[in-house]
């Protein structure tokens, strides 16, 4: 554990170093060394000159998400960014190519955690230097070539976007920050503005119009959610076209890369506007909104999406919020790197009607709590690393498996399926040498055909609601990533962002609305199958396009479902851990990886924590067996034992009473004890506590009376007594005091308990009504 933690610290330190915070980086390296004295990387980093980042040696088992098994030594950028092949099959250089191999190595390590999520085809954006504004590189995306799905986690640090570049149909274009581009030293053949291309899911492709294939340089095109469109208002003419016929974001389409490219290239982009200011279209629907807006309203080339940069990103850049009236629909102002993403809430909502959105939220929240493990049984092979980069060796690979410490742990990492079709080179993107934080790593399914399951991280949830323009954020939990077996990932579908056509392996996921979606895998039931849309529910796609959220059908993802969480294929659709399958699940490639057996909840299991039925859940790793508790809904048939509830209530009350007694608040304690006595008159504990409290109170009151054998006298006159604030009990006690009865006699004749009488007498003494004994 300490080694992993040390690796995380090292990774974080690398990013800090890249960001320019050398002192912070040094501290992290030192801490890492303390935790793991054998961490060579940390030692090297500490010893390395400023700015240098030692590379780690490549390893076949590295979890570098961008490493591909068997691939020729790609550049670091290529490795980081994955291998993206345009429609023509040419290798698109990684947008963040950097001559610094160590940086490439860091990229891979930072993003190279294991993930059960099928590895998506690495998206190698065109080589473009990141903006000089120090924007962070765009997030890494992994796509499942076989399933033509792309999953990615959008980091909080997503900032700016490189200017968009035309993208071919079936490609997902990301605007690359300038810094990233600069660091990556993207070749000229890459997207001129440093766009990141990803294989676009078929749904996306379908939803997008071919004419809108091209995207402005530096823009990442997604199907725009309706609400994003609504928020954005009218888009410029060029932009309007871009969002026409937006497909599902991650609908895989083995042959759709061309379409995507075409889509990206077709749609003209108003390059006069900075990317971030280019309006995004959103549907008038209030809630139905996804990153992929309906084609009819799309203003970007088919398969391209423009999203406004989240406010937090804007804030980091010093920009005005996207929700400001002036620019409700503008994307990042970074001239070179505009990265737009749909809001995750929009993503889910486009899939299902409003009534089902809650279910998604609920499951997403539950997914946060439940460690998901990927259904994918095969680990995505890491991306091939740049030659110049030296990995940290096995240890480094192991360390690389750990998620980036700067990233939320739930983000997970993209483990790239390095297996790719021949002819398609992958370009890895290297992080900007300007010290931009690396994009979050995503774990992709290890093999095509397997489904991708992911948990919606907590960080995504607020981002969903707060980001005005929508940020599509997905992350794979660490546990999910760890569940992935170390199996090579088939070559994902490559996506070209530069407009170049790249050979598209069948499993490459293309974001285009033209190609039919791939067949969903039949072996593994989805973890999150998208609930069926209600009839009449506006879909983000016009023209009968398939539901974009079907792209999120884990069946499309190559990663097998984590054990213990998957359900049997014939399980009812509304059981736990289960999304409703979409009516038209997206197609997946023929070469879907053999899925791992899905963890299932035994129908006989009495508890979600029943280990016998849920071997995939490592209960002891999460919480002690005696602490694992099942949820209990308000209308659950399981009735709580009223006696137990009463006992609990009494115990709570007594606990409070004891606390008050310890604080010498005996009066308050007595009130609580009286309450407990009403609930349980025969409880010996209550009786004991009551006696204890009464004894103390009685002693206190009697001490104020003086000698109890003395005769008290009334000190006030009748006309003075009448102005006192007494009740009838005190009046009775006072009436007995005639100079002939002692305090002890008063206790006997009061008709009340000794404690009550003492309290009254003490009050009378304190107020000077009667004399003290």
């Amino acid at each position, binding site marked *: 554990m300490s080694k992993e933690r040390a690796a995380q610290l090292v990774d974080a330190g690398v990013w800090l170093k890249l960001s320019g915070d050398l002192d912070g980086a040094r501290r992290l390296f030192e801490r890492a060394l303390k935790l793991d004295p054998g961490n060579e990387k940390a030692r090297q980093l500490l010893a390395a000159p400023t700015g240098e980042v030692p590379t780690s040696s490549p390893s076949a088992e590295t979890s570098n998400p961008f490493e591909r098994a068997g691939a020729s030594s790609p550049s670091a950028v290529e490795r980081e960014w994955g291998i993206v092949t345009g429609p023509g099959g040419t290798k698109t250089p990684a947008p963040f190519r950097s001559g610094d191999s160590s940086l490439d190595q860091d990229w891979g390590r930072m993003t190279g955690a294991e993930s059960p999520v099928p590895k998506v085809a690495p998206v190698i954006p065109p080589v473009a230097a990141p903006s000089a504004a120090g924007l962070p590189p765009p997030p890494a995306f992994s796509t499942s070539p076989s399933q033509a799905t792309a999953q990615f986690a959008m980091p909080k640090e997503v900032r700016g976007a490189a200017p968009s570049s035309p993208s071919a149909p079936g490609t997902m274009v990301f605007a690359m920050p300038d810094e990233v581009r600069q660091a990556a030293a993207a070749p000229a053949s890459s997207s001129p503005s440093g766009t990141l291309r990803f294989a676009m899911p078929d749904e996306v492709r379908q939803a997008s119009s071919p004419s809108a294939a091209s995207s402005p340089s530096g823009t990442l095109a997604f199907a725009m959610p309706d609400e994003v469109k609504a928020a954005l208002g009218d888009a410029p003419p060029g932009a309007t076209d871009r969002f026409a016929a937006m497909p599902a974001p991650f609908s895989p389409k083995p042959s759709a890369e061309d379409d995507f490219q075409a889509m990206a290239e077709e749609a003209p982009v108003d390059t006069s506007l900075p990317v971030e200011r280019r309006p995004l279209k959103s549907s008038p629907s209030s809630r139905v909104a996804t990153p992929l807006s309906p084609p009819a309203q799309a203003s970007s080339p088919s398969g391209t999406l423009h999203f406004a940069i989240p406010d937090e990103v804007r804030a980091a850049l010093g920009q005005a919020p996207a929700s400001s009236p002036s620019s409700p629909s503008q994307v990042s102002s970074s001239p070179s790197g505009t990265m737009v993403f749909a809001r995750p809430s929009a993503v889910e909502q486009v899939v299902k009607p409003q009534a089902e959105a809650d279910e998604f939220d609920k499951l997403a929240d539950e997914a946060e709590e439940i460690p998901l493990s990927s259904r994918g049984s095969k680990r995505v092979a890491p991306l091939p690393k740049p030659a110049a980069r030296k990995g940290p060796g096995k240890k480094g690979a192991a360390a690389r498996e750990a998620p980036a410490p700067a990233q939320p742990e739930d983000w997970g990492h993209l483990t790239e399926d390095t297996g790719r079709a021949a002819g398609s080179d992958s370009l890895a993107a290297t992080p900007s040498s300007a010290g931009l934080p690396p994009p979050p790593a995503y774990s992709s399914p290890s093999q095509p055909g397997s489904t991708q399951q992911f948990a919606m991280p907590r960080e995504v949830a607020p981002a969903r609601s707060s980001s005005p323009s929508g940020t599509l954020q997905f992350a794979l939990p660490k546990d999910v990533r760890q569940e992935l077996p170390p199996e090579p990932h088939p070559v994902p579908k490559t996506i070209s962002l530069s407009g170049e056509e790249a050979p598209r392996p069948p499993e490459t996921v293309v974001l285009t609305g033209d190609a039919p979606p791939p067949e969903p895998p039949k072996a593994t039931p989805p973890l999150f199958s998208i609930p069926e849309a209600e009839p009449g529910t506006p879909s983000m796609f016009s023209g009968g396009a398939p539901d974009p959220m079907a792209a999120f059908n884990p069946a499309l993802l190559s990663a097998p479902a984590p054990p213990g969480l998957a359900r049997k294929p014939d399980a009812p659709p509304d059981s736990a851990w289960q999304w409703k399958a979409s009516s038209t699940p997206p197609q997946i490639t023929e070469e879907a990886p053999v899925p791992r057996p899905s963890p299932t909840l035994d129908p006989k299991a009495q508890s979600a924590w029943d280990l016998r039925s849920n071997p995939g859940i490592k209960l002891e790793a999460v919480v002690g067996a005696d602490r694992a508790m099942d949820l209990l809904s308000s209308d659950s048939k399981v009735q709580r034992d009223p006696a137990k509830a009463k006992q609990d209530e009494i115990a709570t009350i007594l606990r409070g009473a004891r606390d008050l007694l310890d604080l010498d608040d005996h009066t308050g304690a007595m009130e609580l004890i009286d309450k407990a006595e009403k609930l349980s008159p025969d409880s010996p504990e209550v009786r004991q506590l009551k006696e204890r409290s009464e004894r103390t109170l009685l002693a206190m009151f009697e001490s104020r009376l003086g000698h109890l054998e003395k005769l008290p006298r009334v000190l006030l006159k*009748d006309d003075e*007594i*009448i102005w*006192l*604030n*007494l*009740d*009838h*009990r*005190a*009046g*009775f006690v*006072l*009436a*007995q005091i005639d100079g*002939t*009865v002692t305090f002890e*006699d008063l*206790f*006997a*004749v*009061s*008709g009340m*308990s*000794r404690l009550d009488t003492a309290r009254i007498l003490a009050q009378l003494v304190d107020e000077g009504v009667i004399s003290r004994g």
Partner: protein
Amino acid sequence: MAEREPVIGIDLGTTNSVVATVQGTQPVVIRSRSGSNLTPSVVAVSKAGKMLVGAIAKRQAITNPTDTVYAAKRLIGRKFSASQTQEALKVLPYRVRAGEHDDIRIHLGEREYALPEISALVLRELKADAEAFFGKPVKKAVVTVPAYFNDGQRQATKDAGKIAGLDVLRIINEPTAAALAYGLGRTINGKIAVFDLGGGTFDISVLEVGNGVFDVIATGGDTFLGGEDFDARVIDWLVADFQKEHSVDLRGDRMALQRLKDASEKAKIELSTARETQLNLPFISTPQGGGAALHLQKTLTREQLEEMCGALVKKAITICEQVLEEAKVKPIDLKEMVLVGGMTRMPAVQAAVKEYFRRDPSKGVHPDEVVALGAAVQAEALTGAGTDVVLLDVTPQSLGVAIAGGYVRRLIPRNTTVPTSVTEVFNTSKDQQSTVKIMVLQGEAEAAHQNELLGEFILTGLREAKRGEVEIDVTFDINSEGIVSVSARDRETGQQQSIQVTASGGLTEDELKKILDEQADLLLEVKSEEEKKKKVAELKALAQEVTELIPQLQEATRGSEFGQDAISKANRALEQASKASEAADLARVTESIDTLTRTISLFKGVLQRIGR
């Protein structure tokens, strides 16, 4: 000359009791330890289990009704099944049940008590007051009872005295005691009336006084007419007025009711001397819905009180008329009129009595003390010290035997002075009768079954002869103790049979003995507790002294090791003393007292030598 043993006279009343003695030649009332002349005849057990007797018990009679016994005099000596008992139980709030012998048992606190035990508690309280007055134990007493008390009731009263640790010299009638108090035995020969309106009962008695004999020739009254009824009328008036003003029924609140009762009684007493009085009861009630407590402030005038209670007074006068008529005595025949009981202080009562008896009643003696004073006089006379005439005791009810036809042949009429002995000859009522049954009856009714059966026996071996030929002598003998002996003898054969009729107060001999033993143990325990308390107090005082001496000794012996051992021993002794007093172990306390006493002596000696 040896100091005389003190004797006391006790008026064991239904509502209040008084104890008196003769000092010098004058009878005086002995005040209670709380300073009052009257001791309420109330016994209670508080919620904490403490036994309360007297005024303190009366203060909580309403707030603690089920564990407060009052008016036990109405039940003492009676059978549970008797009509008078059942009538009384209707208004009594405490728990009463029948004993094994149809006697009455009262549940008080956590145990049951016989009636004599209840009365014994009151008598013990009075005894304690007397002992506090004399400063020494008091054993002998004369106790008064109503004139209509039967033998059983009188015996029960005697038993109560015995249980209280008193040697009851004599049970005398209350009117007789009142007459004694006025000295009428010496100054008057003739008929006198005693009008006794107490707290709970009303008695009118006509006595024939002469030659030192006080003969009660008529007695009557109402056991449910007394000062409490007058108080109740005032309470009703207050409650009704408060309800009209505040819509609050004070009867629902026991505390309020208790305060009302006390205030009403006090107001009634005040109005005997004042024309009006104020009833001020602040914080009498708290409204149900909350808010400030309510006050009761009323003015009651004498006229209002007389108007409220006129009917009660009239009832008493009506009873007087009946009794006098029965005794064939006219008010004008009376030589003296004696008022007894606190209610006779009420001007309205005095006026009514004056109006009926056509004479001013005697007021020389306080009416609520007169009976006790007379009892004290009689007690003094019985011990031989006094010069007053000894009252001749009389039988309160007629004694006779059942005869053929279901009738009663009275041998000893009521008010016959005792001791007495009467013999009468009876005959057989059937031919060849060889056995005769003698049934001893007590009462005034003509029909045998309407009188109380004191006992019966059988005489056999009679000569078989025609009816009327066999003669049998039946003798009734009553000694000074009131024990009735009845015998029957065949004149011809000389065969004789007899029985001794002892009035039963409800307790058997064994029961009485057991109670007496328990009382003795209780007394020992009480004494032991008192002694323990005294010792503990003494120990604490010694410990305090030692604690003060230790620093002085340390100062005096500073710089030397002298005395250090003693100081450490003294500290140890203090610890042991503390533990002993906490444990209240008499033996350890005593031992600690000795130790600390020696320690003090040692320390003081050392300090003296050192010169401090």
